[in-house]
């Protein structure tokens, strides 16, 4: 605040040759240079819009059984073809895509919250807490993730279904388990950022003014540590989408009446010879989503790294 007032009000301010860009605009300028990331934003926007409003444009029921139209390839009536019960695949993909994407973003949020809390605690502690939390992080990193995911779902599936209903129970469990097994990279990043930031002069200045550790973290350290966390979060979304699809593909994720993209692939894999379209459309959707999110993450890495000169 004090820095922005002019030294003397009588002196005319010389307009700078080029106004310093705001951080947001500067980030956008850097991000735009990554052409593939820019294309990916468009692709992802189309996919998200497709699953969100696609149901309005293509109002076909996902469980409309029509045995006259079994295993048909793409046509005007069924743009993505039909499955073995004659159900319209486009409608099923619109419905399932909403769940696949929701799992991806929700699991990312869970992973980031746990990771930021663990990383912040480890990064701020100067005593025993840091080594203990880092040991825990390393331990979780060396867990066999997919077997453990499968094990937890196998053991808790039925009781959660009883409490939250089929769809809600499976959704909550998958989000919690994927998020709970993927927070470690975020925790490490946050801790590393905290270790350097907490020794910076501006943090020391705030501390000398009597700021509490919580205030320091919230107002001074965490906002400066967010760049790498945002990059990691984008990667987490794609990892969570792959994890959910893998579970559903193995037949242990969502039940058949909730056709997530992975579940569609699971159902399609025994009909590959007669109905390849059934596998190609959902598989292609997963691939496009994951690829575009990964490219966006790469673009954000370029854009948010302040040391990089572009």
């Amino acid at each position: 605040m004090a820095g922005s007032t002019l030294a003397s009000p009588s002196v005319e301010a010389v307009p700078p040759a080029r106004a310093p860009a705001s951080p947001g605009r500067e980030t956008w300028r850097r991000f735009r240079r990554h052409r593939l990331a820019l294309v990916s934003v468009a692709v992802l926007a189309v996919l998200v819009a497709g699953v969100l409003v696609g149901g309005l444009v293509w109002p076909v029921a996902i469980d409309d059984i029509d045995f006259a139209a079994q295993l048909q390839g793409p046509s005007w009536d069924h743009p993505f073809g039909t499955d073995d019960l004659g159900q319209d695949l486009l409608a099923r993909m619109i419905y399932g895509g909403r769940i696949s994407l929701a799992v991806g973003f929700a699991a990312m949020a869970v992973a980031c919250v746990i990771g930021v809390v663990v990383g912040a605690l480890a990064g701020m502690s100067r005593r025993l807490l840091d080594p203990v939390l880092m040991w825990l992080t390393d331990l979780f990193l060396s867990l066999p993730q997919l077997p453990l995911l499968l094990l937890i779902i196998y053991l808790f599936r039925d009781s959660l279904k009883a409490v939250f209903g089929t769809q809600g129970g499976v959704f909550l469990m998958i989000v919690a388990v994927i998020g709970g097994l993927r927070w470690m990279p975020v925790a490490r990043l946050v801790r590393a950022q905290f270790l350097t930031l907490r020794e910076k002069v501006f943090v020391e200045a705030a501390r000398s003014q009597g700021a509490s550790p919580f205030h320091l973290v919230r107002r001074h350290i965490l906002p400066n540590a967010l760049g790498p966390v945002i990059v990691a979060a984008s990667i987490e979304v794609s990892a969570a989408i792959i994890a959910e699809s893998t579970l559903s593909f193995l037949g242990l994720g969502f039940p058949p009446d909730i056709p997530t993209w992975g579940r569609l692939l699971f159902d399609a894999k025994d009909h590959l010879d007669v109905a390849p379209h059934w596998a190609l459309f959902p598989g292609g959707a997963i691939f496009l989503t994951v690829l575009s999110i990964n490219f966006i993450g790469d673009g954000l890495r370029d854009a948010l790294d302040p040391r990089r000169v572009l």
Partner: protein
Amino acid sequence: MGAYILRRLLIAVPSLLGISLILFVVLAMAPGDPFGELASNPNVPPSVRAALRVKFGLDDPIFTRYLRWLWAMLHGDWGFSFASRVNVDALILQRLPTTLFVVGSSQVLALLVAVPVGLYAARRPYSLADQVANTLAFVGFSLPTFFTGLLFILLFSIKLGWLPFVYQADLPGSGLAWVWANVRQAIMPVAVLGFFQAASYTRYVRASALDVARLDYVTTARAKGLTEGTVTRRHIARNALIPVVTLVALQIPAVFGGAIVTEQIFRIPGIGSLLIDAMLANDTPVVMAVTFVFAGLVILFNLVADLLYGWLDPRIALR
């Protein structure tokens, strides 16, 4: 070096204990009574059930139960499979070699692809070849193994008819034809898993080679008049590959995850497909034992990577 090996071994023990504790807590928190069937059977009086609970120590303090469970797991006393009516350890030992063969060959393939491509891409960063390699790597690790597996089956088995898509562990026959049949059926699973890993390894190799290429001794080597190939092979590659060992070790849990998917797609009779089959058949002893084996394998390979790291870079062992 001896002290280093000992220290690494001592670090591996608490991680094994930690992982076993997590597994046990998951199992202990799970709902359901192992004597559930007996409880609903009206012919079994409650006193018999109580006696059984005492006999198997189900009402003991949780810590005692954990120690007893851990002791049994470490002994190889893994129980009896409900579904296949054999001891679980026999079942796993019979399936393990297939999994290790597929995972091992896919890792060799991944490194055979990733090391040359990564080193080549790092020779001229941001050149056309580098950008092509980078984009391909992104595509590679954005293609989930279950989708590549289906695409491979669609292309090579159904459309072209070149390769079989069902894996048989006990092919009949002998001689060269038998070896060839084994290689043929392993090509697709190994390629699916190998290319997926190669994509991320390529990026590691490239980044690590770029770090090393800036160092002074590389400039010295160039100043001596060595050819670019010699500099890359003998000076850059040797040091650039050391950190890659650690990064490969960090990927091991993901590799075993990929193995489960691949085994399921190609119906390979390994421990990954055993895990899925046991889950679909509600065969809890097998599920627990296979998860434990996966955890043990991850720790074992991490230990191997650590020892390899110390051997490749003596500075690490001295610290």
